[in-house]
């Protein structure tokens, strides 16, 4: 009996103190995805990677806005978004206290401005993404003189690029002299 009691005393209380004391999670725990909208470039890599479609993006071409949405209710905490994010804007934290009374509280949204195409003046890509690419190119060793030329190219939508390329090729073939065969 005494042995049992001393054994019990030594073992102590196995039950965790939570919710009256904080509950420490183990390292590598995948909890609530923390989104830092200031670091996001709206490149949509996470929305493509998300297997549960908890991350979605929609583009409003008229307003020139792109809206990023995260639904914690649908998230399966797989960390695929964290893996693919080029800027580290989304990181899974150790926070597990996600229960809500109102479903709307499960949503995180962010709105990004689209930049206009330099030739057709229609919005096509997030301004932050274009700036990020230029920043990367500059750091990778692109000379200062090239920056403006690159900016013109990066701020042109694929449609206009294609059109410009076609007209360039047709112009060139028109001015080319007929080939003389021996």
């Amino acid at each position, binding site marked *: 009996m005494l042995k049992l009691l001393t054994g019990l005393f030594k073992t102590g209380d*196995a*039950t*965790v103190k*939570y*919710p009256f004391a904080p*509950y420490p*999670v183990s390292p*590598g725990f995948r909890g*609530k995805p923390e*989104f830092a*909208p*200031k*670091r*996001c*470039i709206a490149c949509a890599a996470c929305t493509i990677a998300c*297997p*549960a*479609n908890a991350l979605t993006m929609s583009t409003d071409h008229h307003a020139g806005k792109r809206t990023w949405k995260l*639904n*914690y*209710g*649908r*998230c*399966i*905490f797989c*960390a695929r978004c*964290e*893996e693919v994010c080029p*800027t*580290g*804007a989304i990181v899974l934290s150790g*926070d*597990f*206290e*996600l*229960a*809500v*009374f109102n*479903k*709307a*509280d*499960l*949503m*995180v*949204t*962010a*709105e*990004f*401005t689209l930049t206009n195409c330099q030739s057709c003046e229609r919005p096509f890509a997030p301004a*932050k993404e274009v*700036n*990020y690419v230029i*920043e*990367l190119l500059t*750091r*990778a060793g692109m000379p200062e003189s090239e920056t403006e030329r690159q900016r013109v190219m990066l701020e042109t939508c694929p449609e206009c690029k294609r059109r410009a390329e076609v007209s360039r090729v047709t112009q060139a073939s028109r001015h080319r002299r007929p080939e003389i065969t021996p």
Partner: protein
Amino acid sequence: MIQLDTSHGTNLVPAPGAISESEQIAKLKQTLLKDIRRSAYVFRVDCGGCNGCEIEIFAAISPLFDAERFGIKLVSSPRHADVLLYTGAMTRAMRQPAIRAYNAAPDPKIVISYGACGCTGGIFHDLYCVWGGTDPVIPVDLYIPGCPPTPAATIYAFALALGLLDQKLKARHHVEGEDENVVPIHPQIPLNLRVELEREARRMAGYRHGRIIADRFMHLLGAEEPTPFAERVQHYLDREDDPRLAEIFGKLTDIVLKR
């Protein structure tokens, strides 16, 4: 009572026989939620889940987490229940039994949607045979996201329902500000080297951990400190005491030295 309202769910089709509750019951429920002065009996309804949520519910009533210290007890009949815990994405076949369980429980009752599937349909939200969560069929009072929610998250939700804790999560909306530009991570390291390091670390340690390890390595590499890089790495590895990490860091150091 049939409610043809799809505003709460993402479903295009409302579930047949979807229930809405009367005002009187809603009021009774508020008092039950706020001021429950007895044990809360929980009945668990599996509406097509993968059983992960069930395992976590039973982990939550195990001695380690011990939900019974709050008087939370699992019962085996909805007729004894105050709280109905719905798990799973609500398959077509489980809609009718779910409604029967709801009707069998005495009023006022609290309905909890458990897990990602219960909240919104989760990863199965666009399957042909699911209604996409509990709320297209039954009015829900509390949502517990997670896939599955950990026992601690379950305890938190019960504490929330019993008024012991406050809700932490709030809807957030961010609008891009002026001149909000992003600086690349580890700007002092050349892009090509960064790509090579990340690739190697991911090859060695798997995708997520590889990225974390590469991040730590580049943090050490890019830091401007008087101690030499090799010494900093050694100090870090000594502290972590993990041979696997030492191996990966060795490979990454080789890549840096080669350039």
